[in-house]
């Protein structure tokens, strides 16, 4: 069978994709994706960044502001506060529709505070009790004695392609390394082990071995293989990736994945209709 024929047969079997959670550190979760291509997961990454809808504060109207910061400065800070988004009850308003017209496009909020004291994101009261700031401790502005702040406004559903405040997270991926020790009994074992900036290689009872627990920390920098090409062989797997989501909190990881794929899907459907 020709190479092209084999390739076709492979495609006919369909992708055999697998995903598993590898690690969760603070807000970042890393998944091991198997049986995918860089083009495929990059399209998911791009869709997640720019096409997944979330809520963010969009308009603020000030009644009183004698705080140290200007109105626009506070409005900008409020816009960046990430809000827990109820993805099923809200949707992104079409371009020619005022989001104030329908409840499904926006949620109203208000705040009034008197100094002295720090105004925090927890002080915002939304008209929908399900919507609240993810980090209530976020400082907005510190009011001194006699200073006052009062405003109302709306938060609107939007997409990351318009402003990054609507992005649900930061997404990145890297190849899964394949690190082989060709000659574990090399005389210079300890200097080979020291060549790795991440400490992936170690010497145990005179033998140079790869610390498998740390393998995913490899950045494929190539320092080891470059300095000792006769001892180390470094490559990466073609169809496996470590896919990380640094979640800003508006949505769950699974919701980001799902919404990104739905967005891609509707784009493909639109295209196939147009062709």
């Amino acid at each position, binding site marked *: 069978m020709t190479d092209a024929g084999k390739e076709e047969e492979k495609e006919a079997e369909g992708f055999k994709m697998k995903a598993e959670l590898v690690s969760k550190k603070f807000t970042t979760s890393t998944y091991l994706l198997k049986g995918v291509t860089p083009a495929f997961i990059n399209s998911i990454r791009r869709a997640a960044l720019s096409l997944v809808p979330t809520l963010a504060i969009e308009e603020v109207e000030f009644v009183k502001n004698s705080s140290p910061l200007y109105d626009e400065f506070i409005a900008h800070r409020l816009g960046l*506060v990430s809000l827990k988004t109820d993805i099923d009850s809200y949707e992104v308003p079409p371009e020619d529709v005022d989001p104030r017209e329908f409840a499904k496009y926006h949620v109203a909020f208000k705040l009034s505070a008197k100094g002295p004291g720090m105004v925090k994101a927890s002080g915002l009261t939304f008209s929908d009790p399900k919507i609240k700031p993810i980090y209530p401790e976020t400082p907005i502005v510190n009011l*001194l004695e006699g200073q006052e702040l009062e405003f109302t406004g709306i938060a609107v559903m939007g997409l990351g392609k318009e402003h990054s*405040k609507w992005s649900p997270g930061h997404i990145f991926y890297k190849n899964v390394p394949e690190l082989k020790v060709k000659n574990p009994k090399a005389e210079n074992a300890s200097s080979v082990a020291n060549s790795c900036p991440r400490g992936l290689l170690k010497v145990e009872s005179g033998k140079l071995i790869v610390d498998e627990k740390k393998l995913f920390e490899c950045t494929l920098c190539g320092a080891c293989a470059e300095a000792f090409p006769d001892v180390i062989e470094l490559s990466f797997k073609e169809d496996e990736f470590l896919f990380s989501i640094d979640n800003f909190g508006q949505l769950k990881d699974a919701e980001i994945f799902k919404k990104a794929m739905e967005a891609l899907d509707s784009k493909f459907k639109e295209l196939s209709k147009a062709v």
Partner: protein
Amino acid sequence: MIIPIRCFSCGKPLAHLWQDYLSHIKAGKTPKKAMDELGVERYCCRSVFLGNADLADIIGRFRKG
């Protein structure tokens, strides 16, 4: 001025960690250790913490222009 709500470069929300960061520093930890413990990993976010000078309360005593 005042700690930015999010990282300038990557958009990660950071402002809620500022008070924790200050209390870590007060307890004698190095900025590196404090940021590692708070999960501020990328150097874009770390620069936001290292570069911030909290002057809002001093400026707040004067009238806005």
